[in-house]
């Protein structure tokens, strides 16, 4: 009988994980999926974003997000099927939530995670406004951001089913 208990313990295997409370999980989990689940409170306007962009982004991403030395953020809409496609946030990225997720965790590159949620919302609003994806008077928040329809939203073929075969 004792050996049966021992066998059951071996089968269960070691369990060295420590349970984490929901507040700790929330403080770690900054990723934002297309549904917008997890987007924080707060908001930001195009005008506010233009100010932040001039202070913290323009030196790498260029005037109006035209790029150089870092990747262009704007332009290129309608070029993807041409001989010289121009891939930018505006022309290629399928989801606006990705922009919030990425800016908040990785930008500016010299000081990642230094922007407030307000600044991130504002930057997303500004960048998307340059090519008219959102209006000049747009305000981005947890409600409006996931509803933005990116020009290349339907431009991707999910090839992962093929990977399964």
């Amino acid at each position, binding site marked *: 009988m004792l050996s049966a208990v021992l066998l059951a313990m071996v089968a269960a*295997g*070691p*369990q*060295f*994980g*420590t*349970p*984490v409370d*929901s507040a*700790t*999980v929330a403080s*770690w*989990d*900054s*990723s*934002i*999926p*297309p549904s917008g689940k997890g987007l924080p409170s707060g908001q930001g306007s195009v005008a506010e974003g233009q100010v932040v962009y001039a202070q913290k982004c323009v030196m*790498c991403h260029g005037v109006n997000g035209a790029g150089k*030395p*870092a*990747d262009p953020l704007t332009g290129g809409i309608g070029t*993807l*099927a*041409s*001989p*010289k*496609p121009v*891939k930018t*946030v505006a022309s*290629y*990225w*399928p*989801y606006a*939530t*990705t922009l919030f*997720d*990425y800016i908040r*965790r*990785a930008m500016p*590159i010299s000081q*990642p*995670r230094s922007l407030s949620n307000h600044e991130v919302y504002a930057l997303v609003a500004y960048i998307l406004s340059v090519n008219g994806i959102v209006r000049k008077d747009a305000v981005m928040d947890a409600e409006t951001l996931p509803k933005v329809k990116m020009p290349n939203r339907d*431009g*991707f*073929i*999910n*090839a*992962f089913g*093929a*990977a*399964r075969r």
Partner: protein
Amino acid sequence: MDTKPTHDRRQFLQSTLAGIGSAAIPMSVSADDYLEPSMTTPGQPFTPYGMPSPHEHVQRLLEPPAEMAWPLTGVSFTPIESLEGMITPSGLHFERHHNGVADIDPKSHRLMIHGLVKTPLEFSMEALLRYPRVNAMHFVECAGNSGGNAGPEPPQGSAGAIHGLISCSEWSGVPLGRLLDEAGVLPEGKWILAEGADAASMSRSIPLPEAHEQAILALFQNGERLRPEQGYPLRLLMPGWEGNLNVKWLHRVKVTDAPTMTKDETSKYTQSLKDGRALQFNLILPVKSVITRPSGSMTMNGPGFYEISGIAWSGHGKIEQVEVSMDAGRSWTRAELVAPVLPKCLTRFRLPWQWDGKPAVLQSRSTDERGNVQPTRAAWKTPFSSVQFYHYNAIQSWSIDSDNSVKNVYA
């Protein structure tokens, strides 16, 4: 900044084939010539960590800083033309960083598993080291490797400068599935998001069934703890899948119902087609090979004997065969595969060759156990947009000229 390699750089490594083709020259030798200095003087003392001979200068090839938008985002290349066998020395494993090499204290580093699980858990590195381990030899390849060959003109440089975002190690660690089971994945869980603790919080989504079955939480590389450049103290290893999703400095695994659609799985690492659409989540790396000796920027020693040698690999399993052509693909000869031949691992191949000194074009073509065959460059290019370079696995052509030079050509 993207992973597309740059090639119009100076030659950092002047590789030659010196000695391979040279004929034996009779000489008279005096008795003293037999005594090398090292035979008459005591040697160097013991050292706690051995280094390569000071006479060896094999190094990773760095990108020229002037071509980098930000000096901490880019790659360094494994000098595959200078290496033997199947294992990459840890210090020569290629690098791809999105904002520098994270400096992490293992005492404070934790892995959290959360999302669609019964019990969110965190694991100290000390706790992870107590689990039963698995060991496996696998390559890691950047999905942008060899991308320069997708461009209109063949980039000139060493094999490493063109194809060096490939390395192979023995990895040891804990199966991710064991920890997912411990946390208890809920039925709605279909994907995971893996996030690194670097200054980019590098994040990728991976389908849950494959992650549960195949992913290793790697703690060791080639017998010792991971190198910082490879994600110390913890990296995710998905054998045979895009290097980018082998997230380094791993600190968070979130179980989700769908892909998170991170920047690196939408704007990058997707393959644009001619019609403007793009393939997404094409995650397994295709069958591939490259002759590393002789290869680009080397100098031949004139006509005579050479051993052709190279590496082959596939994200789909084992290498079944490698064929070599000396006439730009008109005729093929099967090369010897060097044991062991392991799945999702570099396989060394060899073939003896008598070079007659006339111009030749060397190619290698690998086939994996699933029957996948390396395509020609023209076939590879056919479906794709002009700017698409990910998953480039076309046959490499090295042109050998009668002036002993070896160049990268499209043939």
